[in-house]
């Protein structure tokens, strides 16, 4: 795997606060945008000072290769993401990408895109790609509460069906995504599918467990603490399912077949 990567001085061209903690940031990064595939990520350096020091990995959420932009969906959790959320049009960030392997095309249909929180970001990109290729898909998205719900209308344009759950029931189904998906799978009698899952580890674990023994191909997009994003630091190790060492989230992933890896706690 040695696709081309680019370092670009990307200018913020739009920023929108979607809800109390999510921000959509559009960056002008023509070369990365043109080469990006769904499931890949970029590494964004926040500042030329030394704090925060390391670039922050962010999934590619949307892109337009012709117009040369890409977007990230940022949840504010710490200093780096906060700095990103406080950027304004005109600000510049050094961006490295596209990084990692994207999602591979589904062998079993339908494609079911299961996302929690900002984990929906790479799935929105994937949905738009599948839709272009007329691959039938459905989406199951979960959020903490109504205020965080986003991208639903957009997804309806791409997918045959879109289901939404919130932890507190303030929008859509009330409860956790794994339960919700299990119910949908049963009701609809889905016994073959390709699941693309991105979200918190407990959510991904439970879906992987639930899928075991069923006719599902399951792909997980995982997060790990990263420094470089391109295989040099060997920091982003994810334990292999077979116990034989580790794979690297940044170059072997971030998308893995659920059978390959063991998710931590």
């Amino acid at each position, binding site marked *: 795997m040695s696709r081309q990567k680019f370092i670009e001085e990307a200018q913020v061209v739009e920023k929108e606060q979607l809800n109390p903690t999510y921000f959509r940031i559009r960056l002008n990064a023509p070369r990365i945008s043109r080469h990006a595939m769904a499931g890949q990520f970029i590494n964004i350096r926040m500042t030329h000072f030394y704090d925060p*020091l390391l*670039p922050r990995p962010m999934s590619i959420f949307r892109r337009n290769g012709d117009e040369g932009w890409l977007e990230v969906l940022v949840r504010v959790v710490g200093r780096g993401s906060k700095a990103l959320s406080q950027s304004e049009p005109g600000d510049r960030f050094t961006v490295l990408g596209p990084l990692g392997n994207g999602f591979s095309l589904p062998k079993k249909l339908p494609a079911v895109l299961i996302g929690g929180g900002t984990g929906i970001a790479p799935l929105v990109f994937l949905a738009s790609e599948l839709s272009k290729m007329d691959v039938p898909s459905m989406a199951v998205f979960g959020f903490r509460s109504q205020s965080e719900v986003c991208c639903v209308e957009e997804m309806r344009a791409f997918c045959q069906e879109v289901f939404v759950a919130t932890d507190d029931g303030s929008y859509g189904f009330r409860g956790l995504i794994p339960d919700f998906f299990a119910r949908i799978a049963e009701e609809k009698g889905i016994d073959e599918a390709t699941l693309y899952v991105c979200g918190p580890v407990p959510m991904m674990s439970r879906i992987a467990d639930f899928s075991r023994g069923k006719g599902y191909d399951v792909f997980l997009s995982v997060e790990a603490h990263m420094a*470089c994003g391109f295989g040099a630091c060997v920091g982003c*190790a994810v334990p292999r399912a077979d116990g034989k060492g580790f794979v690297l989230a940044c170059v072997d992933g971030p998308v893995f077949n659920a059978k390959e890896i063991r998710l931590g706690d």
Partner: protein
Amino acid sequence: MEIDLSVDLGSLNLANPVLTASGTFGYAQEFSEFVNLNRLGGVVTKSITRYPRPGNPPHRIVEVSCGMLNSIGLANVGVDAFIREKMPFLRTLQCRKIVNIAGECIEDYVAVLEKLASVEEDIDAYEVNLSCPNVKEGGRTFGKDPEQVFKMTRALRQMTGKPLIVKLTPNVSDIGELGKAAEEGGADILSAVNTFVGLAVDVERRRPILGTVTGGFSGPAIKPLALAKVWELRQAVDLPIIGIGGIFRANDVLEFLLVGASAVQVGTANFVDPSISEKIVDELEQSCRRMGISRIRDLIGALETT
């Protein structure tokens, strides 16, 4: 003005003082799309061990203020696969190629050097990573004990005529003592420093963030410490020194040269900007021009302290 960036570390001559630090530059190939590797003084491979090592469980990395902690655990392909899979690329490079070696006992290090002998014509120097626990001697880091530094250096010295670089740990009271031990053991060059011991806590989970509790601290935060260690070492020994620690730009390189290093290694910076090592070479030339320095070697140890 013609600027001469070349430096000599004993018999090891570099086109410029910029090397890459072990463990932060992979096997060099990972950086070939970002850097013209032949513009560097040289590259140092990650630590190569007798057998392949998967490394430590996650988290292996955490950012701290102006730096990072790592507990990679010397993950590497092992010397056999290194020779088979990584040497072919390294062989194509014109810059200096330095292989860093590590192990859990003297025999491990010896075994790695024995195997590397078959490709030694393509290796310009060895760097010995002593910041590893000596499993046979109670697990204390080799590099913290001058006696063990001496023994290890002498053992490896007898095996090769290539320049032998001994990489020192800074986690000691007196780094000069370690330098002298390596000098007596027959080292040609010292490199300083390896990472400092650091710890970060995940307060919510009441756990250390790194799987190994403590880890190696690197990045701009350690530069003042590393400069002090190189300065201390410079007073204690005559061997050429390679300065390491928090180097991100040409000015940092010049600081290390002034306190007495003859060359430097760029580490963590490679993760922040994969093209940085070559940029530093460019900047170094510009800085020399601006400051009217025609031969960079004239700066080595030129710090005035009176």
